[in-house]
């Protein structure tokens, strides 16, 4: 295997809240290879966004970050990100308006992004900005580049941010829930724009989402996070077909099936709720909700270890005992 483009090792992000240390990311490791799409999935509080911000060197104020983040072997943790941002690594946030200025035109902002990393003439930078907008499917890009962000629809703004992230042809793009705020139809267009821009530039992508259907359609590999740790990772196909962590299995089982069963209106559901990061269970964080949990699950937190297909890893004491499909493990009761 060649050296990974991005290697994250034993990442910890600890926040301060109400005088307590809140362990939000707890020893996360993953790799991203060249041109690869890796999805980070998990629900709110799982630590996905904090992971993105830590990898990007932009942790929230007061957060303590430890571990290693290497880009092509070069350690970034504690180092300057100058020359990395924009040129080698770029960010697409959930809300485009957090990165677009309301007082400059979209074209001016992307042009400025070009000139911030390369000495190019204004015209040259401008034409690259227009080409970038064109690549994400903005029709009549030269004219639209003269518009302000508020004159764009939500989907167009998100595509403009993707254009801006991609314009300097970074090696890695980190997109944090880039379509959560959008309609499903617009979501599909934005994800297509992201895929097209990625194809054209050869960038690798870390796609943060809570939507497993987006993962299935767009990612090569997936890292499933729960309570600040990876509970499962691997190539998308085997993880979806035969998950080795009960949490992954529960998430997949609770999706409405593509083929509608004419009789059964019940969805398998995971009882309970994710733990609070300030009151984590002693052992496996999922044990209180897990239908397979035994005593040792409550005593000892399992480590991520090979399970299932090649490349698949799971953090579960009982990963070998998980049936396929695991649908029957989860309750179809009305209430939890």
């Amino acid at each position, binding site marked *: 295997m060649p050296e990974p483009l991005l290697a994250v090792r034993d990442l910890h992000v600890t926040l301060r809240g109400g005088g307590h240390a809140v362990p939000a990311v707890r020893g996360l490791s993953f790799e991203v290879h060249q041109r690869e799409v890796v999805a980070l999935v998990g629900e709110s509080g799982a630590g996905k966004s904090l992971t993105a911000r830590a990898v990007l060197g932009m942790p929230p104020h007061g957060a303590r970050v430890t571990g290693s983040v290497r880009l092509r072997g070069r350690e970034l943790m504690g180092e300057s990100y100058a020359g990395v941002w924009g040129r080698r690594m770029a960010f697409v946030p959930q809300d485009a308006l957090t990165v677009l200025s309301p007082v400059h035109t979209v074209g001016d902002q992307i042009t400025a992004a070009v000139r911030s990393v390369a000495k190019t003439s204004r015209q040259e930078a401008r034409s690259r900005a227009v080409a970038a907008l064109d690549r994400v499917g903005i029709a009549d890009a030269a004219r639209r580049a003269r518009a302000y962000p508020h004159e764009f629809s939500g989907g167009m703004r998100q595509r403009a941010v993707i254009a801006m992230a991609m314009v300097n042809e970074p090696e890695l793009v980190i997109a944090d829930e880039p379509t959560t705020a959008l*309609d499903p139809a617009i979501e599909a267009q934005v994800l297509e724009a992201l895929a097209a821009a990625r194809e054209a530039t050869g960038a690798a992508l870390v796609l943060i989402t*809570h939507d497993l259907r987006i993962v299935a359609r767009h990612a090569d590999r997936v890292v499933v996070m729960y309570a600040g740790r990876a509970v499962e990772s691997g190539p998308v196909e085997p993880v979806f077909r035969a998950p080795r962590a009960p949490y992954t299995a529960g998430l997949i089982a609770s999706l409405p099936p593509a083929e509608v069963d004419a009789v059964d209106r019940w969805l398998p559901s995971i009882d309970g709720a994710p733990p609070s990061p300030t009151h984590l269970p002693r052992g496996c964080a999922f044990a209180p909700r897990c239908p397979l949990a035994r005593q040792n699950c409550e005593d000892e937190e399992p480590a991520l270890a090979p399970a299932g297909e090649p490349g698949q890893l799971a953090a579960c004491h009982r990963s070998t005992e998980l049936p396929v499909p695991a649908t029957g493990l989860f309750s179809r009761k009305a209430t939890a």
Partner: protein
Amino acid sequence: MSDPLLKVTDLVVRYGRHTAVDRVSFEIHAGETLALIGPSGCGKSSTALATLALRRPAGGSVRFEGHELTGLRERELRPLRPRFQPVFQDPYGSLSPRLRIRDAIAEPLRAQRRPPATGQVETLMETVGLDTSLGDRLPHELSGGQCQRVGIARALAGEPRLLVLDEPVSALDPSVRAGVLNLLTALQEDRGLAYLFICHDLALVRHFAHRVAVMRQGRIVDTRPARELSLTALDSGPA
């Protein structure tokens, strides 16, 4: 077939000169779920608000259990309101941050000057799958899924016939979504509740609803059985 529980005819809702809902008609029977789908701004939520008599329509009729709601004053609506109740998207935003869960559930009954009978709040909590020990907690001490169950318990307090569910699970974590939907399904089967269900997630709509009305630019452009809904039905997007 029996009379519909809710019959909306030629409903028009305007905001100033903008027509948000343009001659929309549909009906819902007891025990049935009608989903309203369509892109943002197509008039789904305005239709829901007018159905709940929370927004006065510019035209048309909303008949619920035989009562014409559109011309009624708030005083006349008040005794009918417990029969049609909303459940909104944001589980925290729908609850007063300073009311204990027990009081939040009892509030709609008190507002009707029908203080809850002994044990009624506990029964409601059990119905929606909430541990009764949570009664003394405040909303911020509950998870999103638990708060949404409180919202459902509140709506059930007045023994409704119709719930208007505006994106009831889209703000919830994926692992708790299915549990809340199963609860709504069970309530429907037990009590014959009718649901007007607004949702962006077509796979969910197809699973949960009986019929689907597709809205575009203020109009219903298509109504069909949910199982015949194509998951790419909205791919043409808004105009």
